């Protein structure tokens, strides 16, 4: 099974056909059930455990570690007249964010065309705005980790100081 660098998931419109799954830009058929399930599990992992960094009526973006899930409500309606969704899972880049963002938008457009889901230009603009919210997040993650470690150290230092203070107070009192 390939490592998932990016993947698309679009539920079937007629509730009968299989959902459309692409992993690393390759369509995955029902024969490869494991790969299909793996993508869905990754998506779920990011959207449930991660944080929502952007939310509008039609676009929600989640981030968990360096994984991003873009949940798009397209203009296409399914058999139940509900707006169909397209989900894109992708890894946040280490650098050249602008290049990465243009690539993401292009791949979303291509998938929409191939899967016959309608993503109008204004929706693409919303996705672009949402992706901009991710800019600098990679740096923020490592900074946050560093701060978390500092926080733990300072917490222990605080406890030690508190205990020392309490001990001195008790000693003064018992003199």
């Amino acid at each position, binding site marked *: 099974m390939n490592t998932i660098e990016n993947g698309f998931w679009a*539920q079937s419109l007629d*509730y009968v056909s299989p959902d459309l*799954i692409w992993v690393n830009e390759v369509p995955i058929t029902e024969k490869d059930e494991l790969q*299909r399930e793996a993508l869905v599990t990754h998506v779920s992992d990011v*959207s*449930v455990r991660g944080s929502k960094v952007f939310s509008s009526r039609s676009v929600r973006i989640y981030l968990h570690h360096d994984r991003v899930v873009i949940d798009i409500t397209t203009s296409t309606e399914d058999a139940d007249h*509900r707006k169909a*969704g397209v*989900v894109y899972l992708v890894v946040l880049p280490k650098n050249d964010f602008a290049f990465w963002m243009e690539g993401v938008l292009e791949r979303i457009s291509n998938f929409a065309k191939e899967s016959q889901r309608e993503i109008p230009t204004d929706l693409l603009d919303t996705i672009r705005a949402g992706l901009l919210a991710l800019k600098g997040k990679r740096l923020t993650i490592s900074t946050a980790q560093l701060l978390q470690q500092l926080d733990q150290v300072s917490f222990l230092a605080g406890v030690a100081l508190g205990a020392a203070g309490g001990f001195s107070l008790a000693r003064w*009192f018992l003199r």
Partner: protein
Amino acid sequence: MLMETPTLSDEKLNRIILTWSVASGVADITPIIGADLAAVAICQFKMFSALAREYGVTVTKERFIELLSTLVAGTGGWAATIFGASTLIQVFPGIGSALLWWQPPAIAAFTWAMGQVLKSYFPLVKEGKTWDKNSMKSAMKEALRRAKSIDWKKELGNLINWEKLILVWKSKSVIALGEEGAGKTTLSQFLQKGSIDGKYMRTTAPQKLEGRQFQLKNLNLKIKQILDFPGSNIAVGGAWKDSVVESWNDNPDANLVLYLVRAHFLKRQNRQTIHRVENDLKHIGHWLSLVRRKPACFFIVVTHCDLDQDYRDFKEQERLGEYEDAFRKIPVIMNGVLACGGWNRVKIAVGSLKTEESAAELVVQIFSQLPL
């Protein structure tokens, strides 16, 4: 006629002190600076006056000023602590956290010590003796000796009704599962907002929704969070399984799993639905075998009943029990329930999510079946 002086019970005094100490610790959790101090001060004043009443000491203007000056000194101390903590938080967040975590127990301990000191103060005041630094010091020593000798576990156990406390704090996380269009998002949104707007988009990426506390009929519901999953069958083996197994392993009784299915599809024996329900319940039965401690129950929630004429008729005749029984007898439900441990574990609820009233009825039906 001689007035009989009531005998002071040390046990009763200790109970008063302990009650207000715990209350002041809890009051300190008040998340508004200033309000927490006021809440703590109120608890301490209540303790002061309760003890004064026990000793038969009148809280005079003089004593009240004495108490106020103590409180002002205390307030100054806490203001300095808060200022110091907020400054430290900016530099090292951990120190702030340490202070915040230690503050409520420290406040409780301080109030307890204050109560013990009052136990030495009030007899002196009653006898008209003076209260100086030495009396304070010996009272504090006495308090320390008591703190060492007291059986805290027993005292706290007597003070707090833990069972009641646990029940109050017990809240549920809800996981909504089921095939596409079964009403998972509608139910989730209702649990989150209490309203139904009827225009939901199809759920693709699972949604984690914040819960709330609300009253429905005679039920006080506390929902921590709601997980709304997509109904797609490829989500079952991975996304559904991971969340359900993890939440059951974490705390089976705090995580309520609801499996939604459409009434009319079941009754009409819709081939796709029957196959799906059979498969899903088999999976849930398997997940139940994987968890360390099984939940007391999980629910099959039959929705869209408003589309079934029988439901409307039975409801009108107040014979919903018979309508529900009809679903219990559907082979795919019977087999699924068997795979999940029988009707002792699997509960059923039938209804509709068409309107807020019907959704409320369905939610009440679910939650009122939960074991206490």
